């Protein structure tokens, strides 16, 4: 059976508590975003019968969430492929909606990791055969991948810095972004080193925050949204768990998930108006632009240079400011989806890409280990 291209749509989107939300638990934040996303779609919690969630600090969050918000799901999914989980939630929600296994799917996430823990919450144990060497995870894993990309392709720290600078320029246009002060390439290069070649400005933020999206079948989408964001493709791939087992440090499984999502959607990279990539570290953006086909392998460094992915550039990437400057509450994937949908719905305010019809949102889980890609489009793309 082919993917149900355009037969489901996002009709409600909300984010909540990005930055610092002292005193709130992760479930508080996830629910706060969810009621706002439901209200955006003109719905109540009791309308939800498909629940997709994975909180960082609650293994049983599907049940916790259902109880807290008074949802009685027919279908509960807690797939936890790290920050890419939410792209997979959209994939399974689309199949379930299309099959009639649920009618309204809510995909939610929240984390209080900044206020609650002050650092990235780890939901898994460090691997036995890596921990004795004291990598600072996850940064060292991405640093190892970056070292390889630099060795093979001549990618420079300056190229990486261009990614951080573009994100900050977008964040300046997003009132909800955590860091909005101007940032230069020199600032990034001079910042404290964390794990060579990555400095602190190559690393994502540690913030609180929550996001939620509501999906229905296309036949009722227009009853709930002025301009629904239709799901045209969604695909995932897992290649490893630990960085020492990554098959090729400069080629992620985004090459698989992206190719399949594009095939489902019937479009290619050149058709995409706006791109949201999980930028846990600056190297991610370079790897994913290559692996998703926006440029050739090895050319990502040159591609991001000269402001090409920033405001006014040829390819808008991470228009909310990304995990580098907007927010990063642990598993960021749902925020890429929320921003992609917001752009397709044309509600992104001063950072709106004019005439945005096709948006790609790519999630990354673990240490480049799980990759998942979704493509959203406006009604004119059906």
């Amino acid at each position: 059976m082919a993917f149900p291209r355009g037969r489901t749509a996002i009709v409600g989107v909300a984010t909540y508590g990005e930055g610092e939300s002292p005193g709130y638990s992760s479930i508080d934040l996830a629910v706060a975003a969810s009621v706002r996303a439901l209200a955006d779609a003109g719905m109540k919690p009791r309308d939800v019968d498909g629940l997709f969630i994975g909180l960082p600090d609650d293994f049983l969050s599907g049940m916790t969430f259902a109880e807290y918000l008074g949802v009685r799901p027919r279908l509960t999914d807690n797939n936890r492929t790290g920050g890419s989980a939410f792209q997979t939630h959209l994939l399974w929600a689309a199949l379930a909606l299309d099959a009639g296994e649920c009618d309204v799917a809510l995909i939610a996430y929240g984390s209080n990791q900044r206020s609650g823990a002050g650092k990235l919450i780890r939901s898994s144990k460090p691997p036995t055969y890596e921990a004795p060497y004291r990598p600072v995870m996850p940064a060292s894993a991405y640093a190892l991948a970056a070292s390889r990309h630099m060795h093979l392709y001549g990618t420079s720290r300056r190229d990486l810095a261009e990614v951080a600078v573009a994100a900050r320029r977008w964040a300046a246009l997003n009132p909800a972004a955590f860091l909005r002060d101007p940032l230069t390439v020199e600032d990034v290069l001079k910042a404290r080193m964390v794990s060579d070649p990555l400095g602190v400005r190559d690393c994502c933020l540690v913030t609180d925050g929550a996001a939620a999206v509501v999906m229905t079948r296309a036949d009722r989408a227009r009853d709930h949204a002025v301009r629904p964001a239709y799901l045209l493709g969604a695909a995932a791939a897992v290649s490893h768990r630990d960085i020492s087992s990554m098959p090729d440090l400069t080629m992620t499984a985004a090459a698989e998930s992206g190719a399949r999502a594009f095939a489902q959607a019937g479009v290619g990279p050149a058709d995409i108006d706006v791109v949201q990539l999980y930028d846990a570290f600056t190297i991610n953006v370079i790897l994913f632009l290559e692996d998703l086909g926006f440029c050739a392998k090895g050319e990502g460094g040159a591609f991001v240079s000269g402001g090409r992915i920033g405001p006014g550039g040829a390819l808008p990437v991470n228009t909310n400011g990304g995990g580098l400057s907007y927010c990063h509450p642990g598993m960021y994937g749902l925020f890429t989806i929320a921003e992609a949908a917001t752009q397709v719905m044309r509600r992104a305010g001063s950072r709106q890409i004019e005439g945005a019809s096709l948006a790609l949102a790519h999630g990354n889980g673990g240490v480049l280990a799980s990759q998942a890609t979704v493509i959203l489009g406006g009604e004119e793309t059906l």
Partner: protein
Amino acid sequence: MSEAPDIVFRRHLEAGRFMLQRSRETGAYIFYPRVAEPGTGCTDLEWVEASGLGTVHATTVVRCKPPEADHNVVLVDLDEGPRMMSRVDGLPVDEVRIGMRVRATILRDGDAPLIVFVPAES
């Protein structure tokens, strides 16, 4: 039931031996120790002593707050095929280079033995 692979590996390491598993059917080496060969599912695994030789595949330096010293973390491609995380001792932490030939040595890390590498030329 045979002994768990992790226990066998660590007992060899305590005795000063760096061992890899190898499938009798495919001849492929495996690291980290496991109960089946990835991909094939072969369980006909035997223990073979590693040559200890390898090549640095990727490298980073973890920058620490003083007084803790910076240290390198590398991925090493063993000559037998598998890749593993380790570190390279015997030269300044930021002078480890991709492509460098290295040789394994077993140190004590607190209570446990630890495989680290040194430049193969030394």
